[in-house]
């Protein structure tokens, strides 16, 4: 619809929208995060929800203790190999539509603890991530920015057609295999459906 006409109509008190916009508008402004902190970043996540940064402005201050009631998982901190199966299980327990924010360097790639034998080198080895936030830890402003990015992403989702998101496809998986503890490492070390090793950028 023509943007100009719509603005004109709304000035007259007539609001015109599409079902898709209404649906996305509702979802993007009531993201309920899973109250779930892993490490240092969790403190910044709490700080974000406190008075100064006030996450409530984005409709996302309702931290739910249960994954069944949440639709956003903020992976806030280092995912260790001992914790990774639980993180995947929590994701599987969340109801669709669900989103993942990887907060901080550790959740993205292992960060400063990348050399660690018990550190998972990024949660995207097991889960699809919607927004990555760099930083160690990211400031609360960065988390707010991630929220806004995620909201834009949700607002742009189509309800029908080839581009429709995962939760509207019957064939797309809503749950991912939970890795098992092996004798030396997690089994499997990554989920090939979600993550493939990147290609070498440079061959010297």
């Amino acid at each position, binding site marked *: 619809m023509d943007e100009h006409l719509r603005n004109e109509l709304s000035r007259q008190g007539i609001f015109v929208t599409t079902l898709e916009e209404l649906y996305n508008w509702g979802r993007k402004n009531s993201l309920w995060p899973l109250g779930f902190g892993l490490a240092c970043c969790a403190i910044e996540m709490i700080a974000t929800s406190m008075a100064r940064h006030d996450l409530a402005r984005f409709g996302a201050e309702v931290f739910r203790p249960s994954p069944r009631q949440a639709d956003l998982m903020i992976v806030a901190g280092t995912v260790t190999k*001992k914790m990774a199966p639980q993180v995947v299980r929590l994701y599987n327990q969340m109801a669709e539509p669900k989103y993942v924010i990887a907060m901080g360097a550790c959740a993205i790639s292992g960060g400063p603890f990348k050399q660690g034998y018990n550190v998972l*080198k990024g949660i995207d080895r097991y889960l699809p991530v919607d927004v990555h936030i760099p930083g160690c830890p990211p400031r609360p402003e960065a988390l707010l920015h991630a929220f806004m990015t995620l909201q834009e992403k949700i607002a742009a989702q189509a309800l029908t057609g080839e581009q429709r998101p995962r939760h509207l496809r019957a064939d797309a998986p809503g749950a991912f295999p939970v890795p098992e503890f092996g004798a030396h490492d997690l089994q499997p*070390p990554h989920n090939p459906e979600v993550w493939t090793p990147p290609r070498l*950028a440079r061959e010297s």
Partner: protein
Amino acid sequence: METLEQIKTRVELAVPGASLTVIQNGSPCAQHSILVDNEHALEVARFLQQDPQLRLDYLSNVTGVDWLEQVLQEKSRSRRVIDGVEREIEETTEKRVPGYLEAIYHLYSMELKHGPVILRLRTSDRAKGTVLPSLTPLWRGAEFQEREIFDLYGIRFEGHPDLRRILMWDSFADHPMRKDYVEPDDYEYEPTPHDEVLERARQHYLPRT
């Protein structure tokens, strides 16, 4: 507080058969320590805890250390007659110092506010004889720390009430803080790999197409 030599003399009088060695520390803080033989370690520790002059009632810290087998090369020069000519020959002798695991206990006194007295216990080797007496029956503060050493170094503490893995999962097989531990090969690819990382990347990751 008494010097370590005085403590050693008194302990050896009080615990017959115990053999203590004072280990010198080269750093400026001069925190020297006492090496105790494993058989009498519990008795010695009990004496230190209960002796009215020492009253080391507080176990601050337990550290595990892995000492690998060392090969010390000693060079010696000698003059010998070879083929009728006297020559100076340099000889290298190799001396093998077997490896061992060590547990270091830092003891303080809360009552008398002195310390530290540092105890060291050593295993006989790094493979099979990795057994040490547990001091948890005397200081419960050692409980989690000895479990951690069992988990990460593989020292079995005899007399520990609950010796299980503490940090790694239960079916984990290795002892990752040992110096010869090989970690799983799951390093993250780096955008501009070089040296070792490039070698690793070549082995694991798909080449650019």
